[in-house]
């Protein structure tokens, strides 16, 4: 086994171990305070506070544990491939395989945390529910939802083009196997988002005893769905980036003279970087983690905006 492969495997193992430890320790109050700042809702008093902290800790345990398990599965796959000689000494495929396992594992863990949760209502307590059905578009900023769908489709399309066009495989940013794995992981994550996101994250009922509890339930549902979106975006974006460069290079060498080819490749790189910066700025300005608040609890969002302006 090459030193590079060994280093990558050790790093992936450390990441998996760290996540497993995080899953066991799962801090309570500090984590809740962080979520509270992110989702724009003040932490309530007990007993609701304790209930929320337990739910967050449970989700963290499942997502971190499943992410660690995903990374371990990825590492096991790499070790098997390395032992059979399918991975070359300088091949970086392993790290992407472990990365895809980690991201996909985290998304599946978020769904499992909900599926395995027991629900019960306190007898004699009032219950509050929304008079309108829960929809994906109420919990996810369209820029994230559409972005995830488009990126996953682009990831698959890029991979298919890369595999179908041998000339494109002469310039390699990552191996076609790595690109295929990332695109496949993105497509699987999209299916998890579209199916499990609707059926499990939105469909699963949780009884709320007050509007504050209902608002927090919305916040945590949105957080769970955003975790699934992140899995799609993280895996598919890498598939697109790694796939687009060889394709652009092969296309450029067909259409452009050598002198212009490097200019075009550099230009494509800068365009991609600029797009990444624009997305980063947009996501900072739009605060997608608080989209649900503006959509479902506009009064609370307005109150929060006023308080932020005063600070």
């Amino acid at each position: 086994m090459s030193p590079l492969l060994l280093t990558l495997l050790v790093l992936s193992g450390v990441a998996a171990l760290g996540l497993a430890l995080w899953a066991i320790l799962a801090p309570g109050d500090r984590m809740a305070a962080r979520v509270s700042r992110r989702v724009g809702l003040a932490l309530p008093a007990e007993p609701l506070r304790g209930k929320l902290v337990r739910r967050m800790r449970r989700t963290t345990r499942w997502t971190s544990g499943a992410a660690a398990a995903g990374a371990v599965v990825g590492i096991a796959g790499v070790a098997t491939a390395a032992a059979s000689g399918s991975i070359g000494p300088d091949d970086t495929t392993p790290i992407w395989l472990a990365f895809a396992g980690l991201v996909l594992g985290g998304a599946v863990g978020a769904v499992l945390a909900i599926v395995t949760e027991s629900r019960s209502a306190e007898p004699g307590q009032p219950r509050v529910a929304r008079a309108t059905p829960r929809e994906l578009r109420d919990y996810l900023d369209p820029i994230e939802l559409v972005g995830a769908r488009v990126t996953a489709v682009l990831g698959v399309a890029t991979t298919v083009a890369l595999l179908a066009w041998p000339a494109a495989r002469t310039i390699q940013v990552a191996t076609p196997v790595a690109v295929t794995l990332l695109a496949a992981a993105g497509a699987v994550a999209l299916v998890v988002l579209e199916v499990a996101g609707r059926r499990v994250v939105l469909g699963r009922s949780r009884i709320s005893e007050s509007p504050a509890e209902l608002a927090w339930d919305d916040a945590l549902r949105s957080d769970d769905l955003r975790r699934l979106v992140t899995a799609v975006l993280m895996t598919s974006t890498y598939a697109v980036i790694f796939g687009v460069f060889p394709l652009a290079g092969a296309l450029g060498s067909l259409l452009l003279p050598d002198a212009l080819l490097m200019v075009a490749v550099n230009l494509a790189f800068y365009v991609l970087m600029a797009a990444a910066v624009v997305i980063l700025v947009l996501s900072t300005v739009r605060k997608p983690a608080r989209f649900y608040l503006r959509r479902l609890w506009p009064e609370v969002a307005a109150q929060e905006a006023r308080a932020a302006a005063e600070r």
Partner: protein
Amino acid sequence: MTLLTVDPTAPTPPFEQLRAQLLSQMREGALPAGARLPTVRQLAADLGVAPGTVARAYKELEAAGAIETRGRNGTVVAWSPDAGERRVQELAAQLAAAAREHALSPDRVRAIVEAALTPIE
């Protein structure tokens, strides 16, 4: 904010609490005509009540012409400010048909309707 509350300890039955709140939100415009309502199963699970409770509230609202069930599109709000008048017109047409069937004179029907309206006035 279109929230529904069910208090299991209240003297009013849960289905009636739901029916009244939904109707009041329709009248106030919080649930406009065409707005979708959650499925019976979803709302029952969210409120921790039996599906039959929600089904009964929906059934009564449907009978009053306030909501409509549109197959795969689910249950939607059909209430509008003139919904009550339209409903009375429909019932009046049925009354007229029944009166003809039983050969009741228009004067007799008017008398019956007036008698029925007396407690309302």
